[in-house]
């Protein structure tokens, strides 16, 4: 499945700000989608769409910080760059503590905003690549038979074939066969690679 192009989602209640950001981002070739309220953004929100969110803090209705909280509750991974006209330190701290990529105050230099947006897009890209990798590992793990799964757990705990044979009450030769099948199904190039995949998938223990 091909990834959709990353989009910069701009949420600001001020028409003039939305227009100027749309023009600015288009001028550097970034796809833009603007929303006039947090609720309008949420209504159109699709977790599969990659990109980042440029979010005004103060808006009538749901504030930017409230939208950030809602997205966190929804396990959304879209990185957020906050922009604000009248920021204060506690507000900036709260936004950053809740995972914002950045928090910038108006007036800002266009290039500064573009730099932050590019950082946010890179972060989203890396996060999504990590999730895809994790999904791929989990899919491979699901192809293992229950016995292969047991062997995988013991192998990644660092147990030798002889010990595993004893634990499972089978011959060492049988363990070797299972182990080879596990390596093949998991597409592991080495034991270290196999262990790393299991850790990445969060499937240890």
């Amino acid at each position, binding site marked *: 499945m091909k990834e959709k192009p990353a989009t910069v989602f701009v949420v600001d209640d001020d028409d003039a700000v939305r227009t100027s950001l749309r023009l600015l981002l288009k001028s550097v070739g970034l796809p833009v989608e603007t929303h006039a309220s947090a609720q309008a953004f949420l209504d159109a929100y699709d977790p599969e769409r990659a990109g980042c969110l440029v979010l005004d803090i103060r808006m009538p209705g749901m504030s930017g910080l409230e939208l950030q909280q809602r997205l966190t509750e929804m396990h959304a991974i879209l990185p957020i760059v906050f922009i604000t006209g009248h*920021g*204060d*330190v506690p*507000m*900036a*701290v709260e936004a*950053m*503590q809740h995972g914002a990529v*950045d*928090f*910038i*105050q108006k007036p800002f230099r266009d290039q500064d905003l573009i730099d932050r947006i590019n950082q946010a897009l890179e972060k989203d890209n890396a996060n999504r690549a990590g999730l895809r990798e994790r999904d791929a590992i989990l899919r491979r793990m699901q192809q293992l038979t229950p016995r292969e799964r047991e062997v995988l757990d013991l192998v990644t705990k660092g147990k030798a074939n002889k010990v595993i044979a004893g634990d499972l009450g089978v011959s060492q030769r049988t363990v070797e066969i299972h182990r080879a099948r596990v390596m093949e199904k998991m597409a592991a190039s080495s034991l270290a690679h196999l262990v790393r995949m299991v850790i990445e998938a969060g499937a240890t223990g």
Partner: protein
Amino acid sequence: MQPVATDPYSRSASLVAVVDADAALCQRLRARLEALGAEVDAHASANAFLASLAARLPACLIADATLPDWSAAELLAELQRRGLDIPTLVMAASGDVRTAVAVLRHGALDCIEKPFIERALATHVAVLLGH
């Protein structure tokens, strides 16, 4: 290897490092922190603080955003480079949003405006005492 005490046993659970060039502020924070049961090690510069780490690691750090030698963001980056994870509260000038964002990006736990720092200590007492 840096000549730094990274052994977990050299971390002192109740030691709070305060780094600020303002000696009077250091003195006030020392009194407040000692009243909370902390042991306080005050330094006037980032370099003096870094030198002290060879002897003992504090449970937490309270640093001024703009030290004479380094910014708090630079100090946080240096601690990270040395592999030292010291919970850090940064004190910024009133309204200095830019600094607050920079230090949180560098892993600071919180950024407090200087006029509110003494009040904020109570909120962070568990961190300050290494709990």
